[in-house]
């Protein structure tokens, strides 16, 4: 019904739009604002199930692994229509949908791909065990130890900032297998079953009151050697594929959503003759954000085109996109807090209205500027890899 129309883009778009109009519950935001953890998980699973029913669960994967093999234009259309409808996001499945296949496609054996890729369509949640309490920006200094014991490795250590790990079935895990080697050369990449004995997950309570991240405590966890991705001590290279897999796809949908948020916010302000519109300084500041928003959406399209072009040289555009986009989000949310004045200080979670809880959005914006390589790390990448400024 939708996938069959892939050769006719306007019809494909219309089919996605019709399906969304039909399937998205109009009150989902209000429901999720008050939802318990169990309700959130159930809702996320329901949403993935609905997407799967129409072939939009893993549409960007190759056909041989259960996907629809859709190209970039279709992905853009799906993301645009999701944003336009304000459809739910598959937040809990981001690692499952993007990072896991982004790692297994280039580095997994055929047996590994057959074994793990199929589960995503059935709703397997994956998490990422990369950062540690003492290895954040300096990720390669990680110390979680894996020691060979027959046909298994025994893992001990601690991981942190693992999104939705409380609900995850599998974990993409980085471990230290050779403590004597230089730090980048003693790391091994595993897939860990989260139901293994010795895995304990504790949710982290965030500044915005939510708990989307978890901390993993690993005590004598036995991971089969066949779960190793790539070779022993070659995990750093494999991890680069995980880290590079996202390249703007999530940010693209985020920016499209933000477009409707900002546009809706401005329309409401115009209709209600909001006080801030009469303030010259605030109104002009807002127009600056509008300009940056539009430039950012274009920059993301440039990045997605670069991803799709097979002969494009590696660039630092993903870092520039992250740096500019997350900084814009933070400044925009900060602006929303300021114009809401005392009303904006009322405690509340997400609401129906765009920026209806500006403090929540502002606090949440730090996950953009800090997670996935802090903006300071992005600046290092831009300066060193992009501009050829020396590493000292």
């Amino acid at each position, binding site marked *: 019904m939708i996938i069959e129309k892939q050769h006719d883009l306007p019809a494909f778009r219309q089919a996605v739009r019709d399906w969304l109009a039909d399937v998205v519950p109009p009150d989902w935001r209000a429901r999720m604002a008050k939802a318990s953890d169990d309700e959130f998980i159930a809702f996320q699973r329901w949403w993935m199930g609905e997407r799967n029913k129409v072939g939009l669960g893993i549409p960007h994967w190759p056909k041989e692994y259960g996907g629809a093999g859709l190209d970039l*234009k279709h992905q*853009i*259309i799906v993301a645009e229509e999701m944003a336009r409808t304000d459809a739910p996001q598959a937040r809990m499945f981001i690692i499952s949908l993007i990072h896991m296949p982004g790692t297994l496609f280039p580095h997994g054996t055929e047996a590994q791909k057959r074994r793990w890729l199929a589960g995503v369509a059935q709703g397997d949640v994956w998490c990422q065990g990369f950062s540690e309490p003492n290895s954040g920006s300096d990720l390669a200094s990680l110390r979680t130890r894996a020691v060979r014991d027959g046909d298994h490795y025994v893992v001990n250590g601690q991981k942190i900032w693992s999104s939705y790990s409380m609900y995850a079935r599998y974990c993409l895990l980085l471990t230290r297998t050779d403590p004597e080697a230089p730090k980048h050369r003693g790391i091994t990449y595993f897939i860990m079953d989260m139901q293994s004995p010795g895995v304990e997950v504790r949710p982290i309570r965030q500044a915005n009151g939510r708990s989307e991240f978890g901390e993993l405590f690993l005590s004598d966890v036995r991971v089969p050697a066949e779960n190793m991705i790539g070779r022993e001590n070659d995990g750093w290279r494999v991890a680069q594929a995980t880290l590079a897999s996202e390249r703007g796809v999530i940010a693209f949908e985020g920016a499209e959503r933000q*477009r409707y948020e*900002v*546009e809706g916010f*401005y*329309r409401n302000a*115009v*209709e209600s003759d909001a006080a801030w*519109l009469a303030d*010259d300084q605030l*109104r*002009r500041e*807002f*127009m*600056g954000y*509008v*300009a*940056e*928003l*539009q*430039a*950012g*959406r*274009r*920059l993301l*399209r*440039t990045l997605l085109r670069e991803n799709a072009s097979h002969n494009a040289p590696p660039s630092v*555009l993903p870092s*520039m996109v992250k*740096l*500019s986009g997350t900084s814009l989000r933070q400044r925009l949310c900060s602006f929303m807090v300021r114009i809401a004045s005392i009303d904006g200080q009322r405690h509340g979670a997400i609401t129906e209205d765009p920026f209806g809880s500006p403090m929540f959005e502002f606090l949440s914006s730090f996950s953009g500027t800090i997670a996935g390589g802090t903006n*300071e790390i*992005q*600046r*290092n990448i*831009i*300066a*060193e890899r*992009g*501009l*050829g*400024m*020396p*590493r*000292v």
Partner: protein
Amino acid sequence: MAANAVETVDRTALDALREGVAGVLVEQSGSTAIHAFIDGKRALDRELWQQAAVLGWLAVGIPERHGGLGLGARGLAILHGELGRQATPGPYIATLAAAETIAACGDEAGQQRYLPRIAGGEISAAVPADLSRATASGALRCLGAPDAALLVAQTAEGWALFELASAEVSEVPIWDRTRTVIEVKLGTAKPAATLDRRAGDTLLRAMTLAIAADSAGAARSITERTIAYMKTREQFGQPIAGFQALKHRAADLVTKLAVMDELVAHAVERIEAGEPDADLWAMLAKAESTEAFAFIATDCTQLHGGVGFTWDFDPHIFLKRARLNEALATPNPALRDRAAAIMAEMARAERTALELAL
């Protein structure tokens, strides 16, 4: 298919334009040449203007039936971007914006009389430096050369084209020596042709896009020059480009450049497609790009350290160009106000100003 074929031809022509302009300017409008020019040792502005005429740069935005190349906003943005990159001196922004206004809003006789002469480099034109103060019966401050032959200006009767051959014109010394500002006694200028009521908006759109493109090109250039300098300047026994505090600033600058380029490209696209939000995006592109350019030129001056404060290095040339760009066309706060008003009007009509093609 037809549309694609046209687009391919255009793209070839635009790529050729970019390469051609960049090649000539890198060779002839480099740092040494610009310094010689601002020190009065070389008439680089005239030399390049003659070449620009021969090479067809002045014809880029003029319709083909008047001897132009008809490359529209896309061609003009490329040209102004490259002129900005080399901080090239000359009345390009004023002349080409005036030509666009004549082409869009002048009568047939006026178009036939003036456009081929502009395209051929025979005459240059002046425009009000600040259009928000354009209505004046006395002295009008204009962007343009002291020997400009034409002026686009507004009087109580509306927008018109004036000949300046026998007008009282004096040059106003400005800090940016790569452009010139003149004062024209409007009463002494000879009305030459009327322009229709769209002339004000047309001129503003042409000027804002030209200034935005100039700013984006110039900002990229001074950033590249500054980073190159940081790789050679050593302190504490190493190139200063290795210090993280400075690397992070450089990364911020090039990220700003990427945003500026997209904003200029967006304005070009909306203008070319004749979208109702075209003016909004040209105004925002000018406001954002000129302020980003001023920020970048300021930081590049600082990143140069002591030599950044000298006459002999490049930063001050760009810094002054940036500050003039900010002030031209219409002050940025007023541009943002107008953009906000257009967006509000569109919101009331349930239309979007944020549409983007795939």
